[in-house]
C-alpha cells in the first residue's frame, strides 16, 4: 500500500490543496502567489466571455457528442449480434479505428473533411450536394466534424455494449416471442433494461470525457488556424473548457485563474456524477447487486 499512499499524497492530495489555494490568488510563476479572495471566481462568472463560450461549447459536446456516440455504439453493437458467421472479422474492423492515436485520427479527419481537397466533400459533391459543409472551417459545422471523428472511434464503447447484449439471457427473448412482442417491444422491454448498466457506465465515463475534451479540439484548431493565438478556431467554436484552461495556465501563465477554472470543472464533474448515480437507481437494473458485493 505504501507506494500508493505516497503517490496519493504527492500526486493527488498535495496538488489538490495547492491548486485550491492558488485559485484564490493571483499567480504568474514569476512572483509568489498574492491572495485576492474570490476575485478569480467573480471575474469568471460575471466578466469573462471566453469562459462562458467555452462552457457553451463543452456542454454541446457533452450533450450532443456523448449521446450520438452512445446511440451509434448501441446500433453497431446490435448489428454485430445478428450474423451467425463472420462476426469476428467485422468486430475487428469496427473496433480497430478506436485504437488510432487521437492526434493521428484528428489530423486524418482534418484532411478528410477539408472543403477544398478532402475526399468527403468530393463524394458529397459527386452525389449532387450543393454547397457541402465547410466542416472545420465554419463555426456552425466544426463541432459536427469532431462528432464524426468520435463516431469513427466508437469501437471501445461498442465492444462493451456488444458484451452486454450477448449477456442478455435468450429465454427472455423467447418468452417475449411467445407473448407476441414485435422487435421494438422486445428491444424496449428486454434489451434496454438488461443493458442499462452499460448505458449508465457509458454515460458517466462519457460525461467525464466530454468535460475534459482536449486533444482533438486542440489539434484541429491549431492545424487550421494561421496564428497560434487563435485557439478555438474557427471563431472560438472549438474553444472547449480544457483548451481554455490550458491557454490560461500554460500559454499566459495565469496559474491562479487556471486553478479556479480547474476547481469549477471538478465541482461540476462531481455534481453531475453524483446526480447520475442518484437517479440511476430508478432506471438501471443490476442483475447481481452493485460494486460492493
Amino acid at each position, binding site marked *: 500500500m505504501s507506494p500508493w499512499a505516497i503517490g496519493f499524497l504527492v500526486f493527488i492530495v498535495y496538488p489538490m490543496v495547492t491548486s485550491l489555494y492558488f485559485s484564490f490568488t493571483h499567480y504568474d*510563476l514569476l512572483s509568489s502567489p498574492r491572495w485576492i479572495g474570490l476575485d478569480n471566481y467573480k471575474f469568471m462568472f460575471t466578466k469573462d466571455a471566453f469562459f462562458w463560450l467555452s462552457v457553451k461549447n463543452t456542454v454541446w459536446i457533452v450533450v450532443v457528442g456523448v449521446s450520438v456516440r452512445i446511440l451509434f455504439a448501441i446500433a453497431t453493437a446490435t448489428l454485430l449480434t445478428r450474423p451467425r458467421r463472420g462476426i469476428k472479422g467485422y468486430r475487428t474492423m469496427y473496433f480497430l479505428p478506436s485504437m488510432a492515436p487521437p492526434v493521428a485520427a484528428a489530423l486524418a479527419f482534418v*484532411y478528410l473533411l477539408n472543403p477544398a481537397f478532402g475526399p468527403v466533400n468530393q463524394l458529397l459533391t459527386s452525389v449532387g450536394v450543393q454547397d457541402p459543409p465547410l466542416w472545420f472551417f465554419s463555426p456552425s459545422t466544426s463541432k459536427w466534424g469532431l462528432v464524426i471523428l468520435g463516431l469513427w472511434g466508437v469501437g471501445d464503447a461498442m465492444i462493451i455494449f456488444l458484451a452486454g447484449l450477448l449477456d442478455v439471457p435468450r429465454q427472455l427473448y423467447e418468452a417475449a416471442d411467445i407473448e407476441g412482442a414485435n422487435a421494438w417491444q422486445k428491444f424496449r422491454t428486454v434489451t434496454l433494461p438488461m443493458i442499462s448498466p452499460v448505458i449508465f457506465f457509458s454515460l458517466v465515463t462519457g460525461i467525464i470525457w466530454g468535460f475534459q475534451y482536449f486533444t482533438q479540439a486542440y489539434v484541429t484548431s491549431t492545424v487550421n488556424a494561421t496564428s497560434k493565438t487563435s485557439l478555438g478556431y474557427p471563431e472560438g467554436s472549438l474553444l472547449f473548457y480544457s483548451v481554455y484552461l490550458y491557454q490560461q495556465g500554460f500559454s499566459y501563465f495565469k496559474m491562479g485563474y487556471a486553478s479556479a477554472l480547474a476547481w469549477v470543472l471538478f465541482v461540476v464533474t462531481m455534481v453531475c456524477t453524483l446526480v447520475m448515480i442518484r437517479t440511476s437507481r430508478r432506471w438501471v437494473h443490476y442483475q447481481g447487486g452493485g460494486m460492493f458485493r
Partner: protein
Amino acid sequence: MSARGIRASGADAVRGLATATEISPRPVPAGVKRHRMLSSVADHTLLILFAAMFALPMLFIFFTSLMTDQQSLSSVIWPRPFVWSNYVTIFEEVPLLAYTWNTTQIAVLSTIGTVLSCVPVAYALSRMEWRGRNAVFVIVLSTMMLPFQVTIIPLYIVFVRLHMIGTLTPLILPAFFGDAFSIFLLRQFFTSIPEDLSDAARVDGASEWQIMMRVIVPLAKPAIAAVALFNFLYAWNDFFGPLLFLGNNPKLWTLAIGLIEFRTSHRVQWNLTMAASLVFMIPVIILFFLAQKVFIEGVTLTGTKG
C-alpha cells in the same frame, strides 16, 4: 472452481461471442428459411456498409501518404505516381527516429511502473482484510473522477522548481506510484478469484507476498496484461503530457507532438503528415493483432464488472 475455471470466467464475455454463433441446426420450414435468408442478406449489407465506413479513412490516409505534395492538395484520390520515398523523407525532414525512441521509452517505463505499483495495491484491496479497506477503495474510486486539470498546475510548478521540465521524468515517475483506473481493474479481477486458493496457501505457511506472487499473479495474467496494454497505449498516444512537459525541448519530443511538425510556414504537408501518422499507428495496430483477445476482454471487463 479450478484454476482453469477462474481464468475462463474472465473470458466469459468474449466466449459469448463464439457460442452465439454456434446454434444447433434444427429443421426449418421453407418460408421461415427464405425470410431468414433475406434478413441475413440485409444484415450483411449493413455490416459491409459500416465496415467500409470504418475502413475508408484508413485507406485514404494510406493513399495520401503516397502522393506528391501537390497532389495531396488536389482533388485526386489515387496517388500518381506512388511516392514511396515519402516514407524516407519523413525520417530526414524531422528526427522521427528520435521521437520514436522517446515515445517507446516513456511507454515502456511507465507501463512497468504502473504494473509494479498497482498489483500490490489491488491485492491489498481485494485479498487482505484490514481496517479502513473500503474507505481506501472509495478514495481510489473517487480519484478516478478527479479531472487531471486540478492537479496538473501544482505538479507542473513542482517540476519547474525541480528543473524537470524538458525531461522525460514527469511523464514516467508518477506511474510508479499507482494509477486509480488500473488498481480498480485489477481489484475487480482479483476479487473474482476464490478465497479457498489463498487459504490453502496460508495453511502451507505462505506469506501474503508469496500468495500474491505465486497464486494470484499467475491467475490474473489476463487482467495484468490488459492493464499493461492499456497503459502502454495511453502513454504511446498521449498528447497533453508531452505537449506540457516536453514542449520546450524538441530533442525529447514524442511522435504525438512531432506529428504536427510537417508543415511549411503556411500550411500542412499532408502527404508527409499522413505517412508519419501511419508510422505512428503501426505499432499500435500490430500490438492490437498480437493481443486482440486481451484488448477486447480488458475493455469489456472495465465496462461490465463496474
